Every structure is written in C-alpha cells, then in structure tokens.
C-alpha cells in the first residue's frame, strides 16, 4: 500500500453539506424569509437614508447601499444637543 493510498484511507471523506428541506416546509420558509425582509428592511432603510443628503433622498437614492455617504445628519443631530 502506497503512502498516498494510506493518506487517502485515513483522511475523512469530503462530503458536501446538503440542507434537506421537505417540500411541505417550503411555503413556511418563504413566509419566514419574506417576513424577515419586511421586518428588517424599513429599519435598514432608515439607516441608509440617515447617511444620505436631503437632495439625494428626493432625487435618486439607492435601496441597498447609500451612494454618497455623509455624516452631516448625525453632526446636525449632535450639534442640536440630542445628548442633553
């Protein structure tokens, strides 16, 4: 038996992980993912908008990532004394 064969015998076989999803559970998984998006997205969207300029919001802004990031809104918020 060659060294290569010994290594091949001892090494654990690579088995790709598969996720078994019974067909009956597909609608439930779709619903749960849809609700996840619906529950989180508005909060995420507010976070995106908070780092955009006002002009950008009213013109053409992105749904996923802000194009021109600005910290001006946060600066204004803190200057207006949110911590007091």
């Amino acid at each position, binding site marked *: 038996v060659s060294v290569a064969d010994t290594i091949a015998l001892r090494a654990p076989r690579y088995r790709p992980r598969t996720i078994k999803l019974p067909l009956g559970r597909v609608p439930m998984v779709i*619903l749960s993912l849809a609700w996840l998006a619906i529950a989180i997205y*508005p909060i995420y*969207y507010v976070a995106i*908008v908070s780092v955009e300029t006002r002009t950008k919001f009213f013109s053409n*802004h992105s749904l996923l990532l802000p194009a021109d990031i600005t910290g001006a809104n946060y600066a204004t918020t803190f200057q207006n004394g949110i911590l007091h």
Partner: protein
Amino acid sequence: MIRSRERAVVLAVLTAPGLAIFLVFALGPMIAAAGIGFLNWDGISASQWAGGHNWAKTVTDPVTLRALRLTFELMALSWLIQTPISLALGVFIAKHSRYRSVLAVLYFLPLLFSAVAIGIVWSTAILSRSGAVNVLLRAVGLGGIATDWVGSPNTAFYAVAAVIAWQFIPFHTLLYQAGRRQIPRTLYEAALVDGASDWSQFLHITLPQLRYTIITSTTLILIGSLTYFDLIFIMTGGGPGFATRTLSLQMYITAFQDTQIGYGSAIAVVLAVAGLVLAAALVRLSGFGAMQSQAEGL
C-alpha cells in the same frame, strides 16, 4: 361562620384599593363623559343642556357613520392580515433550533419602536412618493403603479392597515410562540407514530390546542382596532379627506379640533360600549370565560 365573615372582610380590604382605582380612573371618567354627552359645550364657555341631540347625531351624522364603518373594516382587515401570518410565524419559531432563535430576535424588532416613530418613518421614508416602496417598484419596472401611498384616498386606508400589521404582528407572533411551546410533546410523538404529516399535526394538534391563544389574540386585535389612534393620527391625521378617519380619530377631531366636546364625548361613549360589547361577545361565543386551563381537554 366567624371565619367566613373574617374572610369576607379580608377580601373586601384587599379588593378595596384596586376597586377604588378602577372607580376613580376608569368608571368615573366614563360616567363623566356620558354626562358631558348631554351638553352643548366648546370646552371654554358655559355649557348648555342639549338633551339627546348629541346621541341622536352619533347615529345620523354621515361622517361618524362612515368612521364607524371604516373602524369595522379596519378591524376585519387587521384580523385577516395579522392572524394567519402571526400564527404561522409563531408556530414556526416555536421549535427549538439555533437559526430559529436568531430569526425570532429579528422578527421582534418592530416591537422596539414607538407608534410615533413608526408612523413618521413609514409615511415619510417608505410610503411617500420618493419612498422605498416606489423606488423598489421603479427598480422592478412597475413604476406605473407608484403613487403616494399615504396621500392617495384609494390607498391610504390599506397603507395604514399594512403599517399597523407591521407593528403588531411581532406581538401576536410572540403569543402564538408561547402557546405552541405549551403544547405537550407527547401529542406530536403519538401523531408521529401514527404517521401524521407536518400539515396534519398542525391541523389536528397545534390548531385545536392554540384555540385559546387564538381567542386572546383575536380579542386584542379587535379591541385594539377600535382604539387605534396614534399611528393613524401621525401617518394621515384621518385623511386624505375622510379616507382613514376611524371612530377614535372622529372622536378626537370632533372634540378637540371642532371643539364640540359634548358630541365628542358621546362618540367616546359609543366607542367604549362597542369595545365592551365586542369583548363580552367574544368571551361568550368562544367559551373563553369557562376555561379553567390552557391544557384543558388533554
């Protein structure tokens, strides 16, 4: 004999503080509102006796009748949207697994925000003409149906119902999750031995066992729909036109914007009585009042 008398005295003493608070802060204002309902009063100048005029107006005023119809429509729509979704999600996340626990935490995020914050964000950043919904519609080529969802009389009511659902589905999901976790595992194990499918287990075990949770959730949705105020007020103020003016908003606008305190009080009493009747009917029809335990019938 003496013992039972002592017991009655102790019970009376223990009940008295709660009863006093209920009388002063719940029943008292209701009786006062009913009394003001007989007055013609603007809240500042001297009041005048109006007799049954305000009460008659509650059943003849087209705006109030429309508000009443809208309230019942909102009630039905809220139940139809919230109950199936929260039931499904609650049952789904009740099973113990790591990813479901993570999902549960994320699902409940809307519960963290106040109605005012939710109302402002949804009406200005999500549902407005330049909001996320319209940006998304344009991105997928459906720009033709993009509109001001809160500003249009045709869509405002549904937009408000959707936001109310967004706010309250997590809470009802939590109720169903807790209810599902109380169902004994032995029932599912027995069903599994009999070869029952997931759907069959849901239909014949989960749903009947969640009966009282469904009634509790339904009562909260229906009674809540009667008194939804803050979110609608922030989002639309009852408009455009009368499109989202439910009975609670009609009461507020009548009493504090139109300064007809007497008529507003009459509407408030109608609202309170409608809530009481609805709650009593739900308890009577569902047999909820006769229930001794959630595990009844096992």
